[in-house]
């Protein structure tokens, strides 16, 4: 059983529990490569095109209300 704060979030996650609760050691990503010729299987995943995908991300960006930031107001926090 999942604890009371979390059983509903597990439902949202499709009731797929983590496969392992123990801390796992695994190799860390070696990070970006220095400037130079790129390999296909390593290094940063730079977008393949020079601009965001037209099908998805640009569509998402166009949906943003131009006045969204103008209306956004918060109180000062820490």
């Amino acid at each position, binding site marked *: 059983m999942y604890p009371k704060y979390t059983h509903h979030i597990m439902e949202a996650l499709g009731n797929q529990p983590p496969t392992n609760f123990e801390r796992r050691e695994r190799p860390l990503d070696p990070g970006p490569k220095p400037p130079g010729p790129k390999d296909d299987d390593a290094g940063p995943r730079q977008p393949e095109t020079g601009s965001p995908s037209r099908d998805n991300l640009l569509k998402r960006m166009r949906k943003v209300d131009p006045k969204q930031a103008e209306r956004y107001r*918060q109180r*000062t926090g820490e």
Partner: protein
Amino acid sequence: MRLFGIETEYGIIREDQEQSDPVVESMELVRAYMTEKFEQTWDYQGEDPHEDQRGFRVNGLQQDVEEEQFATLDANRPFSFYEMKSDLVLPNGARFYNDHTHPEYSTPECSTLHEIIAHDRAGERIIQHAANARNATLGSSSVQLYKNNTDLHGHSYGCHDNYLISRTLHFDQLTGGLIPFLITRQIFSGAGKLGIEAQEKSYQPGVFQLSQRADFMETELSVDTMHNRPILNTRDEPHANRQKYRRLHLIVGDANMCEFATALKVGTTQLVLDLIAKGAAPQFELADPVAGIKTISRDPDLKAAIPLKSGKTITGLDIQKAYLSAAQHTFEESDTDTNWILTNWEMTLAQLEHNRAELIGRIDWITKHWLLESFAQEERLEWTDPWLASLDLEYHNVNTERGLYLGLEQEGKTHRFCTEDEIRTAILQGPTTTRASIRGLCVKKFRHEIQSVQWERIHLKSLTHPQQLDMSDLFDPAHVRQLWQKIDNAKHLADVVSIS
């Protein structure tokens, strides 16, 4: 032994209301994560933001007047102080509550970069899950949450990174070694911002900055956090044995969306603290650090040089290279995290100088700049166009259907530091190497035996004499695991507390 954690205050809006009450909305959001009646659990005793690391206690904070005004207003609400705070201690050892009108998620204490990234991302999932639950109640999708640090109208809220350090390290040693690093780490940890602001002052559009927070830094050192914000906050709340430890509470940083940026921010800061402890940090005498942090933030070309007291000048990149060089000499052939930090710090500084497009999806300000620039070209917009400021805001939306960073992530164009499985685990359990796992287990297993919880202690309900589980010295991972096993095997928490 390393221990760190991140507190993130989220921006919150109700899109279906012209003016929503942020106290009520933040409270309702936190409560939407609960499935039963709220019971006050958090122990506020021992929290004193007036204690200063420099060895004194201030009589008042600059925010006290404003806080009193809010308290007067809040007294008229139909909720108690505790109900408004709605402090939750989660089974993963995290704290989730309403802090100063912002929902805040404080990660459990972590000891590795993998743990801190998984728990930072777990916080995003938890808070968005709460928003989904709240929206279901409202019958709309009007509640939206932003993991950023400004409303672009002069109101900032924080993302604080915290580090446990030895009290044998004098605070004076920290200031000289840390401030040059802190004002320049934004070149890889800045979240990016379109426009210039100041505390509760007007917004000047059109200038792209590295950092969301630099505009709000007003002094070098201060115990304040809401006004007169310092580059190095001097609050002295160790949440541990005060004789042995300090907690470095940094309020200068931005909330990052990129996992890589968070890892590099926390990792390099930890290494610089290790350097200072060894007396090996480079020394820079900056003429004006407060002006310097703004100068560096407002120069995406990274060419701007800031003055030293000697009359010479130096760039942010060169200051970072000096810290990197000292760390490379001091921590050769070290542990896994240190090796990762050294490798990626060096690579990132090189990419910033020679090929920063390689850092899209890894460094937030570069990713955001690329998105905005691409969109501006596509739509033929000027940098002053308010639509771009709105895109800046939506970059930080943690709604998976709206957030621009999360959209990029869904397209596989961001670097992932941790796996989805690690995030799921982090939602449910604290890091097994730290006392957070004990806190989480106690909350899961013995909630009805608990009177109150603080970071370093758990008070038990008792009809006879007060009992508490004191974790103020519990930092050895082997001791954590032993105690976790005892509690897991126990029928009652009191059985363990009485013998621990």
